[in-house]
């Protein structure tokens, strides 16, 4: 048994009388990866906030390397050797990779009172750190030019800067493709080899099972189960997390897709982006598109929704040839696009639920002349959809959606399109940053819609998700469709191979 590097003892915490953490005790041994799982609101972030010194615990203690540890502010915690890799990327796109690494403690030239940056030392120390995480870019590169995976690696490099004893990862893979995630896991295992204690928080239970040595399951602020991960199965974990049995994560389809084509794409090409893409989406079909980040899957969706242009090929919607696509026109055609960047393209973060939900379908509630809104109908309708999707909120008008959890945010975006009467959904990473319970609810809703004849294209990096949900999966690589697999022929290995395409060969 290895030395415990971090210990939590009987931690309690309440907000305004409501207990959010109750008697939390567990140990993070050095050189061990501990998975911390639980639904949103289970108390994971509160616990991490206590660890990082943002919040004080009401009762209980923590020990770091056997010494009692009670940080009062984040800097204290960092100094003691606790590092965090956040879900929300705390990077500054207008600065270089090296500058991002050392933003709070630049190496300085003598005399230090001048605060002049020692650029040589900055460069060499940054290079060294980037090497540690296998990130092969020039430290002078602006962060806005890095891919999401590279950014996540940069975040880790930042965490490693202070030679930490414990590194806590909070949803590190949400914006990563599978190979990028694999790369990340290699690095995390390296940390483990170095004797660092790792806390790994994720909604992706597959990853947790693959990576972690031990798991701790939280529900409503209490530990529901803990131990070596070999002793748990994914269904066990889910049951512990949600407190009820979910027979399976993916609901069964009741109706098969109809034969009628809703979208037909013929030999669509745009130089440098996609090449000769042909496929058909049928009514009531859930069509998955799998592929690596940068395989052209998101770009294809953007073209289909009129956000980007194409120079060859034809698109038919409901049998009619459409040209000069634009989002507005697509919306009129009954299409919806749930984008991968929820904050920038999906939500009006500082607006309320009603304002967000009515964005697409607004005209349907306005009179023909002058567009005067029927506010009562509108609010009723929003409340109906909100109920249907079981969105959790405090005030439907005044609460800004950025204060909602990821799952609820995604439900709002989905609700926006449903309220707008969309019948063809393009869903790009629909469950990114969404916890297990909400994820199940979203799947359920999607399948229900498909059964009612709504067609959808689901783009996801999570192959598990596509396999569970889709009637058919297209595999893309380098802007081309490499394979089209029907449900009965789903084979993970084959699809992965297709996704890697030429890359695997070289």
């Amino acid at each position, binding site marked *: 048994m290895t030395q415990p590097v971090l210990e939590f003892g009987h931690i309690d915490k309440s907000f305004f009388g409501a207990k959010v953490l109750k008697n939390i005790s567990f140990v993070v041994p050095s050189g061990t990866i501990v998975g911390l799982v639980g639904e949103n609101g289970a108390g994971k972030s509160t616990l991490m906030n206590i660890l990082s010194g943002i919040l004080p615990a009401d009762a209980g203690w923590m020990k770091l390397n056997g010494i009692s540890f009670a940080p009062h502010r984040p800097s204290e915690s960092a100094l003691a050797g606790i590092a965090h890799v956040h879900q929300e990327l705390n990077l500054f796109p*207008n600065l270089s990779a090296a500058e991002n690494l050392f*933003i709070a*403690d630049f190496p300085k030239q003598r005399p230090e009172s*001048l605060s002049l940056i020692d650029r040589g030392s900055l460069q060499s120390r940054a290079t060294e750190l980037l090497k540690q995480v296998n990130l092969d870019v020039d430290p002078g590169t602006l962060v806005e030019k890095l891919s999401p995976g590279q950014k996540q690696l940069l975040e880790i490099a930042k965490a490693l800067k202070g030679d930490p004893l414990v590194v806590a990862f909070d949803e590190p893979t949400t914006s990563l493709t599978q190979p990028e995630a694999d790369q990340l896991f290699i690095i995390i295992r390296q940390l483990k080899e170095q004797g660092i204690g790792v806390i790994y928080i994720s909604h992706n239970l597959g990853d947790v099972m693959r990576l972690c040595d031990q798991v701790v399951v939280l529900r409503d602020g209490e530990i529901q189960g803990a131990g070596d991960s070999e002793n748990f199965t994914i269904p066990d974990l889910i049951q512990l997390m949600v407190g009820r049995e979910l027979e399976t994560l993916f609901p069964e389809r009741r109706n098969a897709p109809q034969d009628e084509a809703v979208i037909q794409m013929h030999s669509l090409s745009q130089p*440098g982006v996609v*090449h000769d893409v042909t496929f058909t989406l049928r009514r009531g079909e859930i069509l998955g598109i799998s592929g690596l980040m*940068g*395989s052209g899957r998101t770009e294809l969706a953007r073209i289909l929704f009129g956000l980007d242009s194409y120079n060859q090929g034809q698109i038919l919607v409901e049998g009619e040839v459409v040209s000069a696509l634009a989002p507005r026109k697509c919306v009129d055609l009954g299409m919806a696009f749930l984008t991968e960047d929820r904050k920038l393209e999906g939500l009006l973060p500082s607006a309320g639920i009603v304002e967000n939900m009515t964005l697409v379908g607004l005209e349907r509630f306005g009179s023909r002349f002058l567009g005067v809104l029927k506010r009562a109908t509108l609010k009723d309708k929003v409340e109906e959809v909100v109920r249907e999707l079981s969105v959790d909120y405090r005030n439907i008008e005044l609460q800004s959606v950025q204060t909602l959890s990821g799952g609820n945010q995604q439900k709002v975006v989905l609700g926006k399109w449903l309220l707008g009467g969309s019948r063809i959904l393009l869903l790009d990473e629909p469950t990114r940053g969404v916890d297990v319970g909400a994820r199940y609810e979203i799947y359920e809703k999607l399948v229900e819609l498909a059964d009612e004849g709504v067609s959808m294209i689901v783009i996801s990096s999570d192959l598990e998700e596509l396999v569970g949900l889709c009637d058919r999966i297209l595999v893309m690589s380098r802007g081309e469709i490499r394979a089209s697999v029907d449900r009965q022929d789903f084979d993970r290995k084959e699809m992965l191979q297709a996704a890697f395409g030429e890359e695997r060969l070289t």
Partner: protein
Amino acid sequence: MRLSGWNVSNLGLTYAPVLLYAGVIGTFGILSPSFLSTENFLNIFVQCSAVAIVAIGMTFVLLTAGIDLSVGSIMFLCSAIAGTSVLHGEFPVALALLFMVIGGLFCGAVNGYFVARKGMAPFIVTLSMLFVARGSGLWITQTRSMNLPDTFRQLATTRLLGIPVPVLVLAVVVITAHLILTRTVFGRQLYAVGNNPHAAERAGIDVPNTLMAVYIISGACASIGGMITLAQLAAVSPNLGQGRELDVIAAAVLGGASLFGGRGTAFGAVLGAVLVETVRNGMNVIDADPYVYPVIIGLIIFAAVLLDSTRHRQLAKLRRRKIRTETS
């Protein structure tokens, strides 16, 4: 390598601002040969030096997504302080200049206090300062204009190594500002704060102090700009600096600073100021109808902005990530 059409248009877009300058200078050069003399170019720099210096300070503020509307009034208040202390207090000129800088630092610190410590909107805080500083200045001068001794004027007309002092001051300020922005911890952290103040706070940057500092810098730059104006005019008039905030912000933004923070450079601010002054000077030199001045200046700013936004859109298109390399 063959220059393809694509390359030419790309080059043209990348250097669009340069082409604009060349166009403006070329047009005036053809219309009046005396426009192209070295002396006249020095003139342009001398005449825009005050605005350029204040615009550099403004760039610091804009980098944090703030705004400083009070610079024109600070220029006036500082000049009023200097004028009064020399005329009525019989202080030596050097001391008066010191008072100016102290005045600028103080006004900037007050702005900074309310923005950084009280978390108030910079627009409102500096708008208040605009009124308070101008009011105080008018109070001090009793709205009289003051004519200052010759020592002040000599500050503006003396040349070192053939270069007028205001241009030298501008050079010192712009180089210092450039070094601060690119080579110091504060400068780099400034870009971080401007990009995302919450993330900057989490990263351990002292955001309030950074904000405080930019308003103080802006106040100081305003006082230096006031100093140069004062030296050039050898007088304090009650409308000194009035409405200057718009000229200054225009210069900074023409030079590439974003009103939404995180973007901008010191040299850019100077270029923006020089462009506007070049047009004004050029029209003066070709003896254009005075009524047409504002029309032309407005249209050239419009053209510059149009060019810049077109350039950005086109460059973004051209630089879009390529997923596949076309073999054909």
